[in-house]
C-alpha cells in the first residue's frame, strides 16, 4: 500500500516531467550545434531578434509600469464582484491567438471601436511595431497580473498598518513596504510574462503582420523560415528555447531567492516564541 503509493507518485512525476521536457530536448537532437550559431548569422534572424527584443522590452516595460500599481490596487481593495474582475483579467488567456488578433483589430483597427478616434489623432496602429507591442502586452499582461496580485496579497497587512501608524502615506507604504516585500513574487511573475511575450505568435501575425525588420519577431521569423530554409527554422527554434530557458531560470531563481529570504525572516519572526 505505502510502497504502491510512493511508486505511484514517483511514476506520475516521471511521466509528467518526461512529457514536458522530452519534446524540448528532442528539438536539440534535430539541430547540429553548428547551426545554432549559424542561425545567429542570418540577417533575418538578426532583424527578428532585434524586433523581438525591442518590442518585448517596450511591451514589458508598459506592462510593469501599468500592471504593478493596478495589481496593487486590486490586491488591497475589497469590493463586490472583485472575484469576477480577477477572472475577467484572465480571460485573454483563454483566447486562441487568432481570436486575440481579431479582437485587437476590433478594438484598435481602422474599422475598430477606437478606429475613428485614433484616425482623428492620425494614429495607425495595425501593422506597425506599436501593433506588435500591443499584441505582446495583451497576451503577456494576464500572466503578470495573476502573479503580481498574488504577491501583493501575500504582504502581511499588519506591516502596512504599522507603516501607517509611523506616518507613512499610501505612496510611501507602497514604495517602502509593499513593493520590497512583494519583490520576489513580482520578479517571478515578470519573468513568466516576459517569456510568454517573447513566444507570442498568433495575435501578432494577424494584428501586426510579418514585415521583416519591422513587425517580424523571432516566432514569426521561425514560421517564415519554414518556407525558405527549414534547417534555419529549426536552429532558430532551438536558439529560442535556449534564450527562453536562460531568461526563466535567471529571473525565476532571483525571484525564488528573494522569496526565500523574506520567507525565512517571516518564519524566524513567527517561531520566535
Amino acid at each position, binding site marked *: 500500500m505505502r510502497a504502491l503509493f510512493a511508486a505511484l507518485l514517483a511514476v506520475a512525476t516521471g511521466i509528467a516531467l518526461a512529457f514536458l521536457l522530452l519534446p524540448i530536448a528532442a528539438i536539440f537532437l534535430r539541430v547540429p550545434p553548428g547551426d545554432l550559431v549559424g542561425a545567429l548569422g542570418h540577417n533575418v534572424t538578426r532583424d527578428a531578434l532585434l524586433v523581438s527584443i525591442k518590442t518585448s522590452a517596450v511591451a514589458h516595460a508598459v506592462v510593469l509600469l501599468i500592471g504593478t500599481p493596478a495589481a496593487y490596487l486590486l490586491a488591497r481593495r475589497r469590493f463586490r464582484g472583485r472575484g469576477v474582475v480577477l477572472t475577467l483579467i484572465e480571460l485573454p488567456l483563454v483566447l486562441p491567438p487568432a481570436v486575440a488578433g481579431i479582437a485587437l483589430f476590433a478594438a484598435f483597427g481602422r474599422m475598430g471601436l477606437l478606429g475613428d478616434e485614433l484616425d482623428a489623432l492620425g494614429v495607425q496602429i495595425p501593422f506597425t511595431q506599436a501593433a506588435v507591442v500591443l499584441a505582446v502586452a495583451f497576451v503577456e499582461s494576464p500572466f503578470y497580473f495573476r502573479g503580481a496580485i498574488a504577491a501583493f496579497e501575500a504582504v502581511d497587512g499588519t506591516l502596512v498598518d504599522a507603516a501607517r501608524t509611523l506616518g507613512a502615506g499610501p505612496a510611501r507604504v507602497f514604495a517602502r513596504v509593499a513593493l520590497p516585500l512583494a519583490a520576489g513574487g513580482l520578479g517571478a511573475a515578470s519573468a513568466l510574462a516576459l517569456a510568454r511575450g517573447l513566444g507570442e505568435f498568433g495575435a501578432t501575425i494577424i494584428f501586426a503582420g510579418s514585415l521583416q525588420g519591422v513587425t517580424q519577431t523571432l516566432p514569426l521569423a521561425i514560421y517564415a523560415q519554414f518556407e525558405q530554409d527549414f534547417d534555419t527554422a529549426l536552429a532558430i527554434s532551438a536558439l529560442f528555447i535556449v534564450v527562453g530557458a536562460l531568461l526563466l531560470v535567471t529571473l525565476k531563481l532571483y525571484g525564488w531567492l528573494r522569496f526565500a529570504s523574506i520567507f525565512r525572516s*517571516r518564519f524566524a519572526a513567527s517561531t520566535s516564541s
Partner: protein
Amino acid sequence: MASLRLDLSLPLRGFDLELALEAGPETVALVGPSGAGKTSVLRAIAGLARPARGTISCGDEIWFDADRRVDRRPEERSVGFVFQEYALFPHLNVEQNVSFGGARPDRLLWRLSIEHLAKAKPSELSGGERQRVALARALARGPRVLLLDEPMAALDPHTRGKVRAELHDLLRELALPALLVTHDFEDAAALADRVGVLVEGRLRQLGAPAELLGAPADPFVAEFAGANVLEGIAESGPDGLTRFHLDGERIVYSTDEARGRAALVVYPWDVSLARRAAEDSALNHLEGEIVSLVQVGNRVRVRLPFLTAEITASSAERLALRPREVVFASFKATQARLLPAD
C-alpha cells in the same frame, strides 16, 4: 501633558464594542479574555478601524468624530503602536525600522540599549530584543499616545521579568497616555496605574489593581484576579448574615447582602486548612478531599473539588498534607463576598 479621550462604538463580528475612557499621562491596562475586543480598541484609536459612532480626541486635537464627520488618517494621528507580534519590517534592519518614521534612531537605540543591534535584521533577534526594537520604533516620532498590544505575550517567562521591569521604568519616564493590552493580571498590576477589564466589548470594571483585587465588580473580574468563584443561591440568614447554598447543598455564610442566584467570591489566600473542623461559628467550614498540592514560591496551592486554598509552605509542612486526604477549608464570613451571578 495631553490626555486621551474616547467614547466609541465599534461593530465587531460577534458583538459591538462600546467603550468610554479617559486617560491622562498614565498607563491604563486593558485585560480580558481572547476576543473581548482589546486589540480592536487600539486599532480604533490608531485609526486602523473605524467606529460606527462616537469620538476620539487627544488633548485639543479631535481624531475622530462620527457626527462631525472627522476621521483623521492613521498617519495623521500621533500614536506609537506596538503590535501583538511586533510587526517589524523584515526587509529593514533595526536602524531602518526605527527610523522608518523619519526620526534619527540613535538616542532611542541607546536608551533601549540596542545600539549594538543597529545593523541586524529582525529575523536575527530574540523575542526580547524584537520587543525593544518595536518600542523604539513606536517612540521614534515622539507620539502623543502609546498603544501596546500584548507586548509581553511573545516573551518567555524568564526574559519576561526583566522586560517587564524595563517597560515599567520606561512608561514612568515617558509619562504619556499609554494603553496596554494584556492577558495577564500580573503584567497589568505591575505596569498599569489603572486596569480596565474588557469582556465582550464592555468595560466590566476600571480601577487601580488593588481595587480590582479588593472589590471585584463581578465574578469574571474576581476570577481574573485569582479568586475562587462558587455559584449558588443566597437567602437571608441569622443575625444579619446571608445564608448561601452552594450547588451541592453545602452552606456558607457571608456578611454581604444578596438574594437569589449569586456568586460567592473567596481568595485562595483567605482560605485556611485544618485537619479537624474548628468549633468557630464565625467561620465557614467546607470539607473536601485534596486533589492536588502545588508549591509556588514559599506557598502551596491546595486544590479541593470546589475551591483552591493557598497556604504557606511551612503550614503545609506542619499539616503534612497529601493528595486524597480529607481536610477542612475555613474562611471568615467577612472574606466571603457575594456578587450577582453573571
